[in-house]
């Protein structure tokens, strides 16, 4: 029996195991929305297409599945651009369906027409314009395959309205034929042998874990690898939840706002084992002084990440779920060499401990004003181990990375590469939709929150009990911090002069609003907020000019940290 394009699309989604999609209807996707009424797929109506893409992105981050978002042509589709770029920079598997004007009108400047293939080419892993309904099933199969394999990423499928109406016999292909796309899954054994030799010879090893570890679900293998090598571990923002911060060998995050001890250890190390990381400029600081004494082993599934920013002594192209177990097996088979190597690196672990004692992560809590770090520490104490934390972008995001002890994989949902303000609230929508029974918290600043605050409506409509922590300093804090440190305190356009009544805002949407202005109220407000059913905003009036420290100034080396204001 023949099906219409929109029916075929939904059938493909169902066969790919998609249970929830996020989107916003419009003229060129009206057929899809009509057929959606007869489909078992659950649709969440966000209040902005950007938010729909962020929600689908977070859905992918917490579940490991491919997230799906739908938007109409023209402005609907262009609104998805920030969301797609966010997902692309963090390698999140997604399929975005955009409506397009009917094929005969393409190129005619038709109503609500935008060249989405052209616009999204540099921010997608791949994109497709479907010009014949007979190609649709094959394209959907390829889109999902490309999105989730190799280094994952977003794939956009642009679907003209007439193709949604046209009919074809539906047959979903079982296999994918792409002669230009063969991601390397299994690493070269000779490279692994060399890695083992380098690890056994190292006296000051550091394991540097990136988002690839999160994406490939290797937490258990990673823990085993760390236990075997006894090498101290530092993670990037994206790799953070893949290794428990409470582990004795954890050094927390490295880079611009990394811990003193992680940055010192990387600078002094003689072997850096990079696992699914990409040596981003926020991680390396000044390249010339980055890990100057270290040999670098770089394991990544994407060859373009290797040697892009830093010199690499041993490239290993492969999936971490393949590489780590094989490395562990090879290392443990060399029992004596491993034992003596671990013993020989004991002074190194002692040195790392000494650095931890010298400059632990700290802040000064005063009696008069609430310190934002204190709110995050308290929140961490009060939440479940499997609570999912989403953030926006800015100071609150860095404090979360510094002071929240993530212990379980896929519990930290944040925009790392693109640094998208307004990401957190819609991301919390997606995370809570994926796991209705878990605690989902959006940690936010007053600036970022207002970039997608319309999603309060989505939370209330779908009874998604997300708890929102707003660290309100009435500033765009991170930019203000830079202005303070590098622009002589000239606070150009960073003071949010209009105070928002967040309690009334919450109530206007039918959510609950709470506020703490005093230090002694913090714990009570957090407890009450977490216990209150439904979505809750908890606003904390925090110390206005608190800085995120340590800080490696832009262009400086990792060991040139500013430790105190």
């Amino acid at each position, binding site marked *: 029996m023949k099906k219409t394009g929109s029916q075929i699309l939904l059938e493909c989604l169902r066969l790919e195991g998609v249970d929830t999609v996020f989107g916003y209807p419009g003229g060129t996707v009206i057929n899809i929305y009509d057929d959606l009424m007869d489909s078992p797929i659950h649709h969440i109506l966000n209040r902005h297409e950007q938010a729909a893409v962020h929600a689908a992105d977070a859905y992918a981050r917490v579940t490991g599945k491919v997230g799906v978002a739908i938007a109409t042509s023209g402005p609907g589709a262009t609104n998805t651009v920030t969301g797609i770029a966010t997902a692309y920079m963090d390698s999140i598997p997604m399929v975005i369906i955009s409506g397009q004007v009917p094929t005969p009108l393409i190129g005619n400047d038709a109503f609500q027409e935008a060249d989405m*293939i052209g616009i999204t*080419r540099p921010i997608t*892993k791949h994109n497709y314009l479907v010009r014949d309904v007979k190609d649709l099933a094959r394209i959907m199969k390829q889109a999902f395959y*490309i999105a989730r394999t190799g280094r994952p990423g977003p794939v956009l499928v642009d679907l003209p309205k007439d193709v949604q109406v046209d009919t074809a016999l539906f047959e979903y292909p079982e296999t994918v034929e*792409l*002669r230009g796309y063969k991601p390397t899954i299994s690493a070269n054994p000779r490279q692994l042998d060399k890695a083992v030799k380098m690890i056994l010879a190292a006296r000051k090893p550091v394991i540097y874990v990136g988002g690839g570890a999160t994406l490939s679900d290797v937490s258990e293998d990673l823990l085993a690898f760390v236990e075997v090598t006894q090498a101290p571990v530092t993670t990037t923002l994206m790799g953070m939840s893949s290794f428990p911060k409470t582990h004795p060998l954890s050094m927390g995050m490295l880079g611009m706002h990394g811990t003193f001890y992680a940055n010192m250890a990387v600078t002094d190390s003689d072997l850096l084992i990079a696992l699914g990381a990409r040596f981003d400029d926020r991680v390396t600081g000044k390249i010339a002084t980055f890990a100057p004494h270290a040999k670098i082993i770089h394991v990544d599934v994407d*060859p*373009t990440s290797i*040697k*892009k920013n830093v010199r690499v002594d041993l490239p290993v192209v492969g999936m971490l779920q393949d590489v780590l177990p094989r490395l562990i097996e090879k290392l443990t088979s060399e029992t004596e060499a491993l034992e003596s190597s671990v013993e020989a690196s004991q002074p190194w672990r002692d040195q790392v401990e000494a650095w931890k004692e010298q400059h632990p992560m700290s802040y000064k809590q005063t009696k008069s004003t609430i310190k934002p770090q204190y709110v995050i520490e308290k929140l961490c104490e009060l939440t479940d181990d499997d609570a999912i934390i989403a953030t926006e972008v800015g100071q609150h995001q860095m404090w979360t990375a510094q002071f929240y002890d993530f212990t379980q994989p896929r519990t930290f949902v944040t925009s790392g590469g693109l640094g998208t303000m307004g990401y957190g609230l819609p991301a919390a929508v997606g995370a809570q939709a994926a796991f209705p029974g878990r605690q989902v918290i959006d940690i936010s600043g007053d600036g970022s929150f207002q970039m997608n605050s319309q999603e309060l409506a989505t939370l209330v409509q779908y009874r998604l009990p997300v708890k929102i922590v707003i660290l309100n300093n009435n500033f765009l804090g991170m930019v203000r911090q830079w202005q303070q440190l590098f622009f002589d305190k000239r606070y150009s356009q960073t003071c949010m002069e209009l105070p928002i009544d967040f309690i009334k805002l919450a109530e206007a949407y039918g959510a609950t609003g709470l506020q703490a202005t005093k230090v002694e109220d913090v714990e009570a407000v957090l407890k009450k907020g977490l216990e209150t059913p439904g979505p809750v905003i908890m606003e904390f009036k925090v110390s206005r000019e608190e800085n995120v420290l340590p800080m490696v100034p832009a262009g400086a080396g990792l060991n040139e940290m500013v430790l105190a204001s």
Partner: protein
Amino acid sequence: MKHTHTISVLVENEFGVLPRVAGLFSGRGFNIDSLSVAPTLDPSISRMTIVTRGDDKILEQISKQLNKLIDVIKVIDFTDQDYVEREMLLVKVTAEAETRAEILRVADIFRAKVVDVSPRSYSLELTGAPEKLNAFIELLRPLGLKELVRSGPVVVGRGAKVWKNID
């Protein structure tokens, strides 16, 4: 060390592949000195010849980034290989009474063909390595060179080895 490199890229002969490749170069700040593209013996595949510049690190990135594109089937860097390189040039030269003979003499030396003649101009065609074309242009310049079109080079490896598909 900056070098000029000639890369052949086998791509899917499909709508929208050229902007993917061109966009990759512009988006990542890589140079394109020339680019030519046409279908191969297998009509489902097109072959691009790209002349680019950069040090070894940049060249490695260009090659890896091209390979990462889904529509790219094979990237061949001819830098360390023996290959034949040819480019076509079409020029229009003003042909005054006093220069007509000299233009034809230069054309003859380079084995260029006269492809169009008018009372006041010659159009000439020359195929060869880019350096030969450069030399020809320099000799024609003082004789009244008015218009110049170059195809950008295409290359083929020497010997029996054939680049067709993924193998």
